[in-house]
């Protein structure tokens, strides 16, 4: 069936080609050269634009468990307000913009391409589409409801930190402890230590089992030593923020470090 179609197509192509040849013979050569020139020029332009775009990596990905406050942070960064609140995201929020706090700045500021990727675990496979282009990753952790989610968060973080294209490109990662406006929030040192402990345990079970699907391409840490984020191939830093009150200066600083103005 397919072959027939292709044959049909071939015959038609031949016809068109012949027609085209006749047509070309009728057209004066100068016009022809001009046309070719235009075509070449536009393709050249396109490739230039492509190259330029690829070089200027300005994508920053917000990720983390559901309910950690990514969407609120996204709108804080973009508009300086969480608006009327959020519900669980079903799709990523994406935008290329100049950070809200920098809109008043003079001079040229390079816009950031920010992606807020939903935390629901069913959507996780799609995160792989965004991570390779990222100039930086922000892993948001809910500092208030931290302990019940500690294991899930560590597993998620472990998966990110062992992804081949994250490790190979050494994409810097920020551990952002969110919701520090609440007094019950844990400190960032506590959170870091707990996560390190959990990942240490995961290291034992994960290296033992490698499945076809959730293949962790790289192993974390140094064998025989307790895991610490400082051993990662990627640079891992830790900071605090409160998306709701707009206290996000450390976050903005991190973004600017990796997306140079």
């Amino acid at each position, binding site marked *: *069936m397919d072959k027939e179609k292709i044959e049909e197509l071939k015959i038609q192509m031949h016809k068109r080609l012949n027609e085209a040849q006749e047509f070309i013979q009728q057209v004066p050569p100068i016009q022809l050269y001009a046309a070719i020139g235009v075509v070449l020029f536009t393709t050249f332009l396109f490739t230039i634009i492509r190259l330029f775009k690829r070089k200027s990596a300005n994508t920053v990905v917000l990720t983390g468990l*559901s309910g950690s406050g990514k969407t609120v942070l996204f709108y804080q960064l973009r508009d300086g307000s969480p608006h009327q609140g959020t519900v669980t995201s*079903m799709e990523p929020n994406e935008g290329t913009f100049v950070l809200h706090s920098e809109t008043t700045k003079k001079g040229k500021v390079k816009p950031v391409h920010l992606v807020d990727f939903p935390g629901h675990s069913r959507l996780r496979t799609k995160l792989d589409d965004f991570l390779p282009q990222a100039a930086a990753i922000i892993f948001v952790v809910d500092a208030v409801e931290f302990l019940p989610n500690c294991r899930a968060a560590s597993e998620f973080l472990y998966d990110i930190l062992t992804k081949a294209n994250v490790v190979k490109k050494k994409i810097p990662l920020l551990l952002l402890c969110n919701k520090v406006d609440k007094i019950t929030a844990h400190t960032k040192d506590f959170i870091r230590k707990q996560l390190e402990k959990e990942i240490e345990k995961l290291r034992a*079970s994960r290296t033992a089992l490698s499945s*076809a699907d959730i*293949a962790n391409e790289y192993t974390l840490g140094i064998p025989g030593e307790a895991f610490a984020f400082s051993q990662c191939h990627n640079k891992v830093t830790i900071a605090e923020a409160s998306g709701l009150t707009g206290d996000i200066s450390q976050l903005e600083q991190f973004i600017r470090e990796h997306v140079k103005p």
Partner: protein
Amino acid sequence: MLEQLLIFTRGGLILWTCKEIGNALRGSPIDTLIRSCLLEERSGAASYNYDAPGASYTLKWTFHNELGLVFVAVYQRILHLLYVDDLLAMVKREFSEIYDPKRTSYSDFDDIFQQLKKEAEARAEEMKKSKQVGKPVNNNLVKKQGQVMKGSMDGSNKKNSGGDSENGGGDGENLKGHLLENGNFNKNHVINRELPRMVNSNGKENGSSNVGAFDVNKLQKIRGKGGKKTDATVNKGSKVEPKKKVVKKNRVWDDSPIEPKLDFTDPVSENGEENIAIVAADQGESMMDKEEIMSSESESEEEDIGKNGKVETKKKGWFSSMFQSIAGKSNLEKADLKPALKALKDRLMTKNVAEEIAEKLCESVAASLEGKKLASFTRISSTVQAAMEEALVRILTPRRSIDILRDVHAAQEQGKPYVAVFVGVNGVGKSTNLAKVAYWLQQHKIKVMMAACDTFRSGAVEQLRTHARRLQIPIFEKGYEKDPAIVAKEAIQEASRNGSDVVLVDTAGRMQDNEPLMRALSKLIYVNSPDLILFVGEALVGNDAVDQLSKFNQKLADLSPSPNPRLIDGILLTKFDTIDDKVGAALSMVYISGAPVMFVGCGQSYTDLKKLNVKSIVKTLLK
């Protein structure tokens, strides 16, 4: 009264809420709706029930797919508000007029909303007057289900359709049309609840196809008198057998189906026990730990899929559809999607996906595409296929981690054994696969103990004992006629005494309808509160998968003395090597239970245990 009406983007930003209503909702109905219904490919349902302490809400929703908006209405379930669908449709229409992606505040919508609400209420009132017959009664059946799954889809019963003959004026009629349409939609869901029984016969036929294996095995018995001695050789050839389909035979459920190798069901084998070679840990690496070489072929497969899709579109309209796709069609309508969805549904069903599940999935995909603009250079069929592929990947991606070793380590730290209970219907290979899991755990230096809690079927204990001997794993047994719950309890106590890390509890196979046995199982679970309830199911089942799993969960919930009953946590899919491309059971089971496939049994030796490869399953399903 309406409790709340929200408009938000698919990205999760709330654009507008009705401030005037302003009641604070109890619990978090909206987030729960999104997490356990809309993101679980159940958005084709008509409504969702949410129970929080002190409140029981019903939620209804509609999408504007082109603009990426979601409209949700929340109301008290007891109120049976008639106008909600109507109101949502109007709100959607009016709001999409003023929507602008750059705007985030829509306070001017307040007035419009008040007006719309008044109109909708008036229409509902009028309709009520025009037919006195009765209010639609909410489906009571659903209530129970609601307890099970926290919230559940339901369709309001269409009782009021009896009053059709005495209808009112134009407006009322209009509304009724709308309602009726909705009613049809609902019906699906009402039926769903009763459907499995009807489908049963079909499913059984499926189940019995492994009679083939049974017969061949008998032959072997006759051939080699020593029986078990031939085992090793039999195994090599066994891959071929199961495909042979023997003409349907009456299957006696209590008669254990005999599998060629790993099965030691036959009590006779006790005599020949000396012959059994101890395998210990030299059967090689469990396949759980092997990387699958899948990626290399997957690319070429992808192309194939593309081609297949092409062939499906009518040959004649090739050029016209090409033109259409270049021009970019206007918004997709339900009717446009229908043929493509129908084709897709049929394809899923040829892969042995339960019909009910295929239907619901298609509804959900339709709900997510309706009103969307077709991108240029794309065909409807490929758009639908892409949406379905995404949905399938989402469903099969586990909701939580399925790293059992990590769980075992966690239990180790707490100094208590990790308890896994294997449940399922008869003859699906519970004991055999329990042994495989034991072998795999053992390889990871975990001390395993088996508990023979199938005190019902004769031969079951001996069967497990044989596995235990071969693997040199301690087994806890108390013979027959004992209460399995007590046996399990003693086994766990024994395990903590002798320092075992994991207790694998074998239970009697039982049909999902067998009330006394199901009661016993729910008691076993209640008494021992295991860490993992693993449902063992055959990859061969078709429509019966739905019935098995939903009934198991339902019975576990209903018959449990506990107010927070435990449900199935994970699935072990057996006989995966015998089904070719008919991998639908994996999808059906995961969809209906929400539990992930944790293991896949794919052969006759201890090493034949794998993880589910989501990508390859999705590819096979859509091929």
